[in-house]
């Protein structure tokens, strides 16, 4: 092998560049308001990174990742809401000590499923566990019955719709269409100040980089290669002695857990959680981030998320009603013109030049097949 840069080294370098960009460059050039906005975008990147494994590698398209993002976000929001609903702070309510929206809905006692969210460790656990357990139940039921492909995508989309309806309908328990708002402190620490937001931004960046490293490790293991193999020839994997369904369930749960962490970071940085981040539109948007970044590239997914959200913000500041059309057009353009997204463009146009610069040959995988045997 006479390659100038090994793929492993390139991965590491790519991760380092992303880390410098997110943790050094952006905090230096952006004012706190804009930085907080980038922080919000980066919470979606957790979902996009999970989708790279789930959709890109394993070929399982989920149009319901908003559900898991929402479950993680709500778990955090419930904790924060209870923090700011002390009996002293809510003494004008008819039942002090419960969240305000419950009081408005004539609920007089904290519902049982809210009780664990009085504890921070349990809430953090719930951020990861609730989405993964829910993902496990859904995916186990479907993959055991060999539901896959388009059918799986449609069912996950239906779940996103059902979840929104459920949250909006159960207003006394969930805060309804407004969501859970007026969140103030995390274990006594005020999360609304600029300095808190900056700290949360860095926590978010660290967790995101950790998530990418975790996914890189999974992709580099034999399990990662089995996912690719399954996407290609599911039956061959099954008849090589693997229980295909359990691998699909695993990767779907992993993506859900990551989405949950993203949701929790969203709640912390934005200060509220509402059903508008759970439904069909946000779920599809998350798939588009992944598609734009390149569904086979973990780093690409992060850049795709940032780019699409930046476009969304700038575009919808001027033409809010046109944004959804723009997004749809973008998705179609990506699928038709560059199916591997930004990462694909990078690999076909930029990387060969970098390789040439370092005097190496192209990637070994791209060399043509030798003459076949007679």
């Amino acid at each position, binding site marked *: 092998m006479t390659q100038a840069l090994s793929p492993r080294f390139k991965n590491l370098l790519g991760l380092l560049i992303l880390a410098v960009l997110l943790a050094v460059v952006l905090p230096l050039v952006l004012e706190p308001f804009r930085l907080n906005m980038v922080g919000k975008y980066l919470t979606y990147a957790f979902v996009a990174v999970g989708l790279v494994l789930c959709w890109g590698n394993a070929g399982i398209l989920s149009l319901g990742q908003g559900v898991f993002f929402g479950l993680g976000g709500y778990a955090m929001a419930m904790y924060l809401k209870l923090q700011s609903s002390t009996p002293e702070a809510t003494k004008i309510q008819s039942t002090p000590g419960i969240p305000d929206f419950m009081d408005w809905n004539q609920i007089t006692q904290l519902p049982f499923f809210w009780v664990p969210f009085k504890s921070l460790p349990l809430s953090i656990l719930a951020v990861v566990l609730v989405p993964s357990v829910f993902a496990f139940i859904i995916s186990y039921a479907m993959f055991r019955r060999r539901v896959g492909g388009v059918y799986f995508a449609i069912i996950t989309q239906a779940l996103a719709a059902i979840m929104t309806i459920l949250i909006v309908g159960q207003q006394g328990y969930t805060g309804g269409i407004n969501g859970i708002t007026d969140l103030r402190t995390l274990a006594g620490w005020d999360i609304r100040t600029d300095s808190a937001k900056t700290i949360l931004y860095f926590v978010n960046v660290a967790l995101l980089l950790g998530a990418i490293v975790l996914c890189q490790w*999974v992709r580099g*293991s*034999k*399990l990662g*290669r*089995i996912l*690719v*193999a399954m*996407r*290609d*020839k599911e*039956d*061959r*994997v*099954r*008849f*090589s*002695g*693997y*229980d*295909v369904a*359990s*691998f699909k369930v*695993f990767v779907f749960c992993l993506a859900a857990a990551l989405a949950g962490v993203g949701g929790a970071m969203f709640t912390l940085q934005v200060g509220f959680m509402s059903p508008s981040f759970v439904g069909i539109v946000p779920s599809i948007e998350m798939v588009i981030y992944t598609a734009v970044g390149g569904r086979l590239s973990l780093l690409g997914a992060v850049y795709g998320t940032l780019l699409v959200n930046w476009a969304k913000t700038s575009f919808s500041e001027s033409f809010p009603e046109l944004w959804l059309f723009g997004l749809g057009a973008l998705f179609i353009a990506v699928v038709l013109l560059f199916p591997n997204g930004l990462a694909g463009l990078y690999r076909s146009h930029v990387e060969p030049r970098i390789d040439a610069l370092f005097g190496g040959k192209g990637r*070994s*995988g791209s060399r*043509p*097949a*030798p003459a*076949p*045997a*007679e």
Partner: protein
Amino acid sequence: MNAQAVPTVITDQMGPDFLLAVEGLTVSFDGFKAVDDLSFYVDENEIRVIIGPNGAGKTTVLDLICGRTKATAGSVKFKNTELTRLKEYEIVRAGVGRKFQNPSIYEDLTVFENLEISFPRGRGVFGALAFKRDAQVIERVEEVAKTIFLADQLHQRAEYLSHGQKQWLEIGMLLIQDPELLMLDEPVAGMSVAERKKTAELLNTIIKDRSVIVIEHDMKFVEDIAHKVTVLHQGRILAEGPMAKVQADPKVIEVYLGH
């Protein structure tokens, strides 16, 4: 070799001399019986070839044995274990390997990775996460790659292989599982004459210590490898025995060989 004649009546008390005992196997798709009350027995270290016209139910028989299709009735016993109740991956783990008709390999992975996935270790989710590519794995992959004539293509992406090489790769993926029963569905279909010869040679080297069931249309190839031939017609056995006997059977000539 225990080349005994086909037993007439077999009850549940099977002797251990058969590796595979298929009895009364039936599957019906919406009333159409693709395989109808089929019984046959495969010895250890036997190469059995199944032939028959299109639609005779040959591939369905393999599907039934490996669990891809569920039987409507009947039993498939492998080393006295009932397979019809097991899941596909359990059947594989019991020692039954299956090659598909079209080369079924992972195009996006290299030849090495294709073979490695079939290495019988780390087959659970967490086992796969913890799987290490150690000396034992590398040695075995290289050994099998040599057997299937792909030793110098180990780091080639599988999609760049020729059709014949893909067929060999899939056979290699089965070899690395080291199954006691290997089932091959038209292993030489679409191969050149030279490739066929090499494949026959390959099959003759890999049958040591295992039984093989082959579906094949190429009579020359069948003659080269078969110990015993089973002729299927409309889901039933038309004739069974050594190649010479089957070829001389007027019924077989009528429905199959004559055309």
